[in-house]
């Protein structure tokens, strides 16, 4: 069991502020069609306060199970441990953290290796895969677009290239014909990211406009969890060396270059997402957005494949 510490006076101020904020949110109302998305957000915020934050603060303030500091050794990492030392110095109260026995630990408690290990063992449950059209013309398929609210937190990254690829990359610096490959696996933690599930029809589509999308059937949810992405890119190039013999071998004029890149990934949410209808059209231009499908055929530029 992990320990948590708190300043009772400040936590009581927080409890009162949570109540006041909930009251404010409940007073916000609008039937205007243009305000539908905003009202969904307000209702979601009310639920966050009413169902999650307020009960947790209340439970801590009314908890009678006080804990001695020596149990703080069970804290999940050095940062928490150090914070608990400070808390003891401030004479804060301590209790067993109600969240430590429930649900997933916070991102500070799950390392890159933990995520990989729990992925393989099945301890982490992935989000449901997008629907596959299985190559049938006019059949429906879905895409999942993840829009992080903030810069994603990188838990870690590993280089998946073979030793031969690394060797070829090394010699490509000095040779006129080169081949560079990048193959990495990165684990991100997303907090409060928006995931949009769009329904598409498998048809030939205009490259600029993207695949045919049924905007009325789009749904969205807010999620937190681990995004595991495998990036694969390669560049083949022929370079004409310039300058006198013995000069920098990496300097040269590029005669030919061909690039290819793609990615695949899976998202492991902390809690099962609750999708609600959405009307807003998603943007494909955000560089921090991942869009996944399971069908290879409808793939557009910038989309990845669901699965690793």
């Amino acid at each position: 069991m992990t320990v948590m510490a708190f300043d009772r006076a400040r936590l009581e101020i927080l409890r009162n502020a949570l109540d006041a904020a909930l009251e404010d949110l409940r007073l916000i109302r609008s039937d205007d069609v243009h305000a539908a998305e905003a009202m969904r957000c307000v209702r979601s915020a009310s639920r966050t306060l009413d169902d999650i934050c307020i009960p947790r603060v209340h439970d801590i303030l009314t908890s009678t199970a006080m804990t001695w500091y020596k149990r703080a050794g069970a804290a999940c990492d050095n940062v928490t441990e150090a914070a608990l030392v400070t808390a003891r110095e401030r004479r804060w109260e301590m209790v067993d953290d109600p969240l430590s026995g429930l649900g997933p630990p916070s991102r500070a408690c799950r390392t890159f290796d933990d995520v990989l290990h729990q992925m393989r063992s099945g301890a982490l449950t992935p989000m449901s895969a997008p629907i596959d059209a299985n190559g049938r013309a006019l059949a429906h398929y879905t895409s999942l677009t993840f829009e992080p609210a903030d810069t994603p937190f990188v838990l870690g990254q590993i280089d998946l290239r073979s030793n031969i690829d690394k060797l070829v990359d090394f010699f490509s610096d000095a040779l006129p014909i080169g081949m560079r490959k990048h193959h990495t696996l990165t684990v991100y933690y997303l907090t409060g990211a928006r995931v949009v599930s769009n329904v598409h029809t498998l048809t030939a589509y205009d490259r600029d406009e993207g695949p045919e999308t049924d905007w009325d059937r789009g749904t969205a949810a807010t999620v937190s969890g681990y995004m595991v992405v495998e990036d694969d890119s390669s560049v083949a190039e022929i370079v004409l060396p310039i300058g006198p013999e013995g000069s920098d071998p990496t300097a040269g004029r590029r005669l030919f270059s061909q690039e290819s890149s793609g990615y695949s990934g899976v998202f492991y949410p902390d809690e099962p997402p609750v999708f609600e209808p959405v009307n807003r059209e998603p943007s494909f231009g955000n560089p921090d957005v991942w869009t996944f499908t399971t069908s290879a055929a409808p793939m557009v530029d910038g989309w990845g494949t669901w699965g690793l």
Partner: protein
Amino acid sequence: MSTTVQIQQLRNSARLLRSLSRSIGTSRALSLHALAGPDTWIGPTAQSCYEQLLAMRRQLTTNQLSLADTAGRLDRRADELEQLPPVLKMVS
């Protein structure tokens, strides 16, 4: 629907959206995160709550700005309709 009615509806809608945007912007929900940091509590529950409040704040702020943008768009549309010549107003 006559153009005058349409203009009035657009203006009303823009006014309501601005009012809604102001309500969200002045809601005390936007300042909760400042009270929920490590000066108040420490631990997984505290961290989880703090992150939820931050995410909630981001979403509310995004929607607040989006409402103001939409209100501006509706007002511009009303302005365009007002500037139409009377004959075109009847057609539109």
